[in-house]
């Protein structure tokens, strides 16, 4: 018998209890006083209930106070009906199968003032639940906690706090886990190269389902099925967790890929074979095995990451430690009765850890995406570069090929000319009795040779050309007994190149000029001057001979080759001027524009 003043809530630490499936509290002789909290597994092992509890209290000032009174039950597992003075005032859920699952849901029951007597009030509770061996977790084994009686306002705060922890937070967290998990799963599903994302998403969703046991009360199937489903859910969560860890650490194993799904099939099988009466034992065994598997996967992953990414190791091992602590608390809670608040906190740890790791993964994914885009841009740039390079090389190769073919063809023509035309002309040169014909043939041969050189020749340095011309002019003049002089710019003033054509034509003009001097001028002295000035190359051949008589200039031009000299100069876009007067000698000025035929070296 208790008396209550509303200022201080009344705590019921014991109650009369009797097992009976009746409508009202039965007056049976086997009723006995038991201590609260009452755990069926301890007080009545093997029994399946229901159990009636009765507590009594006095409430003398309660009515005068006018305050609403309430009964607060922290835990009434699985479902409870409350009667005040024989009147039903509260049912927490269904009391017959499928029994509502309200083990984690605290009950705050308002006591109607009209039913409260000043003295000897009787509170009867009919508790429906399941013995520990029928449930997968001790948390859902039948039992009644300490009850408190007091003002509704005072107890409501307690009730709200408790509800927040055991119902609202799991709901909110479960929802978030499904959201984040779904997102990550989709990311992993789309991007098969990062399959660990899909497993991680599955892990989060699985965990959200596990959390739903806290608040999901009314299911359309018997309790035994719910417990069975919850138990095998653990194997799927383990599947996702282990696969995620292995793939995240790039440690794919074929036997794991096969073993885990097999295990998911094996677990329900063994549970079914063991039967609902041994569910708890069997499930506990399985939990141990699954926990060991996850632990091993964590170890493998951490070992791997230790050698590759040290910062990641510290992060993951911190999370792993938290997870281990949570798992240890959970495991202990299965075997012993532990402070509920500790269990609550432990239960919240894994989801929080999952969320943070999930966010980190999304961040990594985003960064990887960014990197991939960057890499792609880089790759495109390189491909572009390589393409340009290849095109350039190809063009170069094609040019070279054309040059090669042209060069070969020129050589062939040159060889043919030498072998056929050259041989015949040579024969004429040396077999003709007619001096004029043999001279003509010799000149033709020289012409041919120069033509071939113009055909096959590469540009020659102007300096080399000057050397060749000097040697020829001086030796020819000296052989003819003419005193020859040669004036040319210093070596370093002649860096230009001369095209083969310009070289050949200039050689011919010079040769013709020297021939004229030797044959016709009667000169005793000849000066050749080479000048590079104003972008022009000038060759001045001056003799002190007879000059070219006017009438001869007109009539016998061909013999002197003046016309052909002028023609050749014109071909090179230059000019050839002849200044001559009887008795004054002859001056031949050949001027070639350098930019046409003399390219800088």
């Amino acid at each position: 018998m208790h008396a209550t003043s509303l200022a201080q809530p009344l705590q019921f630490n014991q109650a009369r209890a009797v097992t009976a499936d009746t409508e009202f509290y039965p007056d049976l002789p086997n009723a006995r006083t038991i201590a609260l909290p009452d755990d069926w597994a301890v007080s009545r092992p093997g029994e399946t209930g229901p159990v009636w509890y009765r507590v009594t209290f006095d409430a003398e000032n309660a009515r005068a106070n006018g305050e609403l009174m309430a009964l607060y039950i922290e835990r009434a597992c699985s479902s409870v009906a409350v009667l005040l003075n024989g009147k039903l005032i509260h049912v927490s859920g269904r009391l017959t199968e499928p029994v509502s699952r309200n083990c984690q849901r605290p009950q705050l029951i308002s006591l109607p003032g009209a039913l409260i007597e000043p003295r000897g009030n009787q509170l009867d509770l009919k508790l429906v639940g399941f013995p520990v061996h029928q449930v997968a977790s001790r948390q859902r084994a039948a039992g009644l906690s300490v009850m408190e009686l007091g003002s509704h306002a005072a107890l409501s705060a307690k009730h709200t706090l408790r509800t927040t922890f055991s119902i609202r937070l799991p709901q909110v967290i479960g929802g978030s886990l499904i959201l984040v998990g779904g997102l990550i799963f989709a990311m992993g599903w789309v991007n098969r190269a990062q399959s660990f994302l899909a497993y991680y998403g599955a892990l989060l969703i699985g965990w959200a389902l596990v959390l739903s046991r806290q608040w999901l009360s009314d299911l359309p199937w018997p309790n035994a099925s719910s417990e069975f489903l919850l138990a095998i859910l653990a194997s799927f969560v383990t599947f996702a967790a282990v696969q995620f860890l292995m793939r995240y650490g790039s440690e794919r194993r074929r036997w794991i890929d096969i073993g885990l799904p097999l295990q998911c099939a094996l677990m329900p099988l063994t549970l079914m074979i063991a039967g609902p009466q041994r569910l708890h034992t069997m499930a506990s065994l399985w939990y141990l095995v699954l926990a060991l598997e996850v632990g091993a996967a964590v170890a493998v992953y951490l070992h791997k990451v230790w050698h590759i990414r040290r910062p990641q190791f510290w992060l993951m091992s911190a999370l792993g430690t938290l997870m281990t602590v949570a798992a240890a608390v959970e495991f202990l809670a299965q075997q012993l009765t532990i402070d509920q608040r500790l269990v609550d906190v432990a239960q919240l740890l894994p989801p929080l850890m999952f969320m943070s790791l999930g966010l980190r993964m999304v961040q990594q994914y985003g960064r990887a995406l960014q990197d991939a885009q960057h890499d792609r841009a880089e790759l495109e740039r390189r491909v572009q570069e390589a393409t340009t390079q290849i095109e350039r090389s190809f063009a170069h190769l094609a040019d070279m090929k054309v040059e090669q073919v042209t060069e070969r063809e020129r050589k062939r023509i040159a060889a043919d000319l030498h072998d056929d035309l050259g041989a015949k002309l040579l024969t004429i040169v040396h077999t003709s009795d007619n001096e004029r014909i043999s001279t003509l043939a010799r000149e033709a041969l020289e012409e041919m040779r120069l033509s071939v050189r113009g055909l096959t020749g590469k540009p020659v340095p102007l300096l080399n050309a000057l050397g060749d011309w000097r040697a020829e002019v001086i030796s020819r003049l000296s052989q003819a007994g003419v005193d020859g002089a040669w004036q040319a710019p210093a070596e370093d003033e002649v860096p230009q190149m001369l095209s083969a054509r310009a070289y050949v034509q200039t050689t011919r003009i010079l040769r013709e000029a020297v021939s004229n001097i030797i044959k016709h001028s009667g000169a005793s002295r000849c000066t050749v001057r080479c000048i590079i000035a104003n972008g022009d190359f000038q060759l001045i051949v001056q003799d002190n001979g007879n000059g070219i008589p006017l009438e001869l200039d007109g009539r016998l031009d061909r013999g002197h080759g003046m016309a052909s000299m002028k023609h050749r100069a014109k071909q090179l876009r230059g000019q050839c001027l002849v200044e001559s007067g009887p008795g004054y000698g002859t001056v031949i000025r050949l001027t070639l524009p350098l930019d046409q035929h003399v390219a800088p070296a």
Partner: protein
Amino acid sequence: MKSILLLEDLPEIRTWLKSLVIQVFPNAQIVECARVHDALAQVSAQKFELALIDLGLPDGSGVDVVSALRESQPEALSVIVTIHDDDEHLFPALQAGAYGYILKEQSRELITEQLQRISQGEPPLSPSIARKVIAYFAAQPKPQVDTLPHVSLTERESEVLLRVAKGFTLPEIGVQLGLSRHTIADYVKQIYRKLNVSSRAEAALEAQRLGLFRR
């Protein structure tokens, strides 16, 4: 001159050359060939003091005959008689051991004179050939094998070559360097000889390298 080899495939030119050679060396015994094959046979059969060799022949190049002669009869004078005046054709012949060259289309008088000069030890040297020789020796690598002689030009030889390349005639160079005509001619001969020796060393080295590869 006692015995002279004349290698030329065109009959008219050969006849003409023969008459020219007889004019310069009236008592010489002249062996005429029209093919490289025949010439090589003659070279192995008897000794020659002078050989006039055409380059472009129906069954090969006269350069082979120059090499053979250089190999078996180092005292014999090989002179190229050709229609090609470009150094691309002449230089290999000079490397093979020819002591000079004559352009076929020149007048009888000119060729006669050149022949006399060559036989007296005054080989010709054109500016373009001189440039080629300079470039050849400049590109010569340092000897890698001690057993092979490393040939290099002396300062005077280089000087002569440089002046020839600039277009100075050999008599002019003689005046410029204060040397006699014979000394200059000796330099030129020396240059030809070194060109040949160096080329042979190079060829030997090349052969040895190939041999090493095959082993």
